[in-house]
């Protein structure tokens, strides 16, 4: 079995109102010097596939088809 972690983040230039709100909340808690905060998503996926190259190709296809909206988001796949 292969385990993987997929990270989905907003592309540069896409406004992130939630990240902005978190940024303000951190400043409010007294964490000085917090720059930009961007919110993303993490998916931990278990695969029955044993071949790493095949697994990576499948995971990328999953991102393109469902897990990420590539209009606004980037993704990265890490096999753990």
């Amino acid at each position, binding site marked *: 079995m292969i385990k993987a972690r997929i990270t989905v983040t907003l592309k540069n230039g*896409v*406004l992130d*109102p*939630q990240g902005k*709100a978190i940024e303000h909340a951190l400043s409010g808690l007294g964490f000085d010097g917090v720059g930009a905060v961007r919110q993303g998503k993490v998916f931990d996926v278990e695969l029955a596939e044993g071949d790493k190259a095949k697994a990576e190709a499948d995971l990328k296809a999953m991102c393109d*088809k*469902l*897990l990420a*909206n590539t*209009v*606004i988001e980037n993704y990265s796949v890490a096999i753990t």
Partner: protein
Amino acid sequence: MKSAVVLLPGLNRDRDMIAALTKISGKPPVTVWQTDTEIPDVDLIAIPGGFSFGDYLRCGAIAARMPVMRAVAEKAAKGVTVIGVCNGFQILVEAGLLPGALMRNTSLKFVCRQIKLEITNANTMFTRRYQPGQIIRSPVAHHDGNYFADAETLARLEGEGQVVFRYAEGTNPNGSINDIAGIINEQGNVLGLMPHPENLIEAAHGGSDGRALFEGALGIAA
């Protein structure tokens, strides 16, 4: 004129849409369920608002991958008229039938109020019963209506007259780029909009500003 309404778990404006289409077209629409792979011959397919699949992952993302949406895409490619309202707009965008994306409102708040819409292009089947530049009223109710498209897509939408509705007079409720409230596809037969015209079609609603949209789309006399 025959119409169909797409049903998905978590939608909650389906009955409003069915009531509006029944009143305007004179006969009740057929309903199609998420697992249906075929849609009967109709003139108009409507995807109502709500929270399909609990807005999990991204609004409309899971609904867009259901079998019924492949059937909608096939019908749209054949020129059948398609309207997506609110969650229906999010589903059309996630399904790739319309460009861009709908993101969280910049206020981070759910907005539920009446706004004003400008008819930016009256030369579409959806807006032909309105005057260019006409301002109409419409309710909105959403958390993720902040339309976004990259600069190239935006220039194309604006240049080709695909921006059909714009929030007017400072009523943009969600921060959407260029005050965009509704867009059509290149072929002009698929419309997505965040406001709810189906909730303003008769005196009992407090006005009928939304009625002409459906009359135009169905090609029936005012």
